């Protein structure tokens, strides 16, 4: 085989593609979908990598989260053992603060559930998070005050009616006014509207997966408790004194929590202590799930596409028996004919691959336009998509090409 034969095989494949556009398109549709699925999914994962992974990293590597359930994706129902676990409480947070020498700061954070509303004059917001926090919130969450002042222990102790706003709330309620010192009205499911004075605005945080991280109102913890007395679920965030003490801090927290929750020494934890790495693991679970979906969709599509290519190539071999006979009569060997038809099959599936790549790139563009994901396709994956498409032609072209190579020139030249 030489370059010329490759060119000839491609040329002939191209001719037969053109001669029968509809048939060819249907043939390569499977390959097209398969490759487009690969490119599309990869672009989603790339988008996730860009937004989520970097955001998880930005949370800081020395943050510890204590939760009732392990962080992760659970398929199916939550097991009874987990559902029966006790919630993490404010007192747990205080105990961790007091009893763990390696822990620098602890921030218990509580989210107000249900319908709520924030009002300033004619402006009104209903979609935001209302979080009860301690003064340690700033340091532990690595998110600091931008204007005004943060909540102090005095605010907590005296349950003062003050609040600190995230950037989105400022934009929503105070488009042209300095919010510091102004009063807003907060209402909720179980309490009548009350007035709160704004004491500060937080630094803007980058959004995660297009979800803004600035859509919150912070209240002093004890003020929050007057609004939501039933303490259900609490997120305990802790920070070691220095990054080197991370491991030690985790051990200490685990020990304290086990003791407080009365876990017998032979039983596993009935709570979870997680770090950035665990969040990363969750992230990888998500991307692996996407990869799995990708592999399944594209395998099925490529299989269908491959069978289509095989079918059309068998038709082509039958239609061109005479041509094969002529070629053999004038000196083509089996392998010359074999390669000719393999190249033709690869050209067919390869052009499906090219269309699939184009389609996939379009899909990626579309995703990055309509969703917050900055979806992109690395060039390597374009190459992989193309190679996979060509390989499909190679694999499913073998049998038709073998049939072509076996054609007996005498027989094929005899019958007209």
């Amino acid at each position, binding site marked *: 085989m030489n370059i010329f034969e490759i060119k000839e095989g491609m040329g002939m494949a191209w001719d037969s593609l053109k001669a029968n556009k509809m048939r060819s398109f249907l043939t390569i549709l499977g390959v097209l979908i398969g490759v487009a699925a690969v490119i599309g999914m990869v672009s989603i994962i790339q988008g996730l990598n860009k937004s989520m992974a970097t955001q998880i990293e930005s949370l800081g590597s020395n943050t510890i989260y204590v939760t009732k359930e392990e962080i992760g994706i659970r398929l199916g129902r939550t097991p009874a053992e987990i559902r029966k676990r006790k919630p993490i409480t404010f007192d747990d947070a205080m105990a961790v603060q007091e009893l763990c020498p390696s822990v620098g700061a602890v921030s218990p954070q509580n989210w107000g559930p249900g319908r709520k509303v924030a009002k300033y004059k004619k402006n009104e917001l209903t979609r935001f998070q209302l979080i009860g926090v301690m003064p340690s919130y700033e340091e532990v969450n690595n998110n600091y005050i931008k204007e005004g002042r943060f909540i102090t222990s005095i605010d907590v102790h005296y349950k003062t009616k003050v609040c600190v706003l995230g950037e989105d709330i400022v934009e929503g309620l105070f488009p042209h006014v300095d919010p510091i010192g102004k009063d807003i009205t907060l209402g909720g499911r179980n309490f009548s509207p009350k007035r709160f004075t704004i004491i500060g605005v937080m630094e803007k945080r980058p959004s995660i997966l297009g979800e803004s991280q600035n859509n919150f109102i912070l209240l002093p913890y004890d003020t929050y408790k007057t609004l939501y007395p039933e303490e259900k679920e609490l997120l305990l965030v802790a920070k070691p004194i220095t990054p080197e003490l991370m491991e030690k801090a985790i051990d200490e927290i685990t020990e304290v929590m086990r003791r407080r929750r009365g876990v017998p020494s032979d039983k596993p934890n009935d709570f979870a202590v997680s770090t950035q790495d665990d969040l990363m693991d969750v992230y990888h679970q998500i991307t692996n799930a996407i990869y799995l979906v990708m592999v399944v969709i594209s395998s099925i599509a490529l299989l269908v596409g491959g069978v289509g290519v095989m079918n059309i190539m068998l038709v082509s071999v039958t239609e061109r028996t005479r041509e094969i006979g002529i*070629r053999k*009569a*004038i000196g083509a060997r089996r392998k010359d004919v074999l390669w000719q038809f393999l190249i033709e099959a690869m050209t067919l599936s390869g052009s499906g691959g090219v269309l699939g790549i184009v389609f996939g790139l379009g899909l990626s563009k579309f995703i990055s336009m309509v969703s917050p994901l900055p979806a992109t396709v690395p060039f390597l994956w374009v190459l992989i998509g193309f190679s996979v498409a060509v390989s499909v032609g190679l694999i499913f072209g073998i049998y038709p090409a073998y049939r072509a190579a076996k054609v007996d020139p005498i027989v094929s030249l005899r019958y007209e």
Partner: protein
Amino acid sequence: MLIKTENLWKIYEVGAEKVHAVQGISLEVEKGEYLAIMGPSGSGKSTLMNLIGCLDTPTRGKYFLNGQLVSQLTDDELARIRSKEIGFVFQTFNLLPRATALHNVELPLIYNGTPSAERIRRAKDALKMVDLEDRMTHRPNELSGGQRQRVALARALSNNPSIILADEPTGNLDTATGSEIMQLFGRLHSQGNTLIVITHEAEVARYADRIIHIRDGKIEKEERLTKQG
């Protein structure tokens, strides 16, 4: 001796029946000879040509081409010999319909591995030899029957074969065009090519040095022609 066959047999088995297409033909052809093979339909002419052209192997007997025993070779070895030693001309031209005249003529050179520059040069020379250099980019359906047969002849010539085998080359042509083709054969012969032409027509066989008459797969008689002029 260019061609030497010893007691060649070709027996086809069609179901339980056996067809004795060639029955013990011994034949010698010298280099530069112009041989015509005549015989009624079904007498085994094409079968004999397939054997001589290394398209097929005999059931029995030996065939030496250029002194090499070729009657026992594998398919791919035969293909190699065809690409180097044999040029075929068929009754129905057998050109690739989608390829240009030049590309059709190039084909044997592709399969015998001729480098591209030389290939194009030789293909063009071959087309010049049959007076078709102005039709190189035409496809078969843009050519007349006679022109198609000339392209086929150029294709048979392009690899500079030891033998040119033609099976009823004028069978699909009118008398005038047929005799043009035969004059072309005469010219090739005068340039030293070895030709074997199968035909029904005495008019066509007349151009040869020697005529072999075949009946029922056997050589019935042989006649040597003396050229006038």
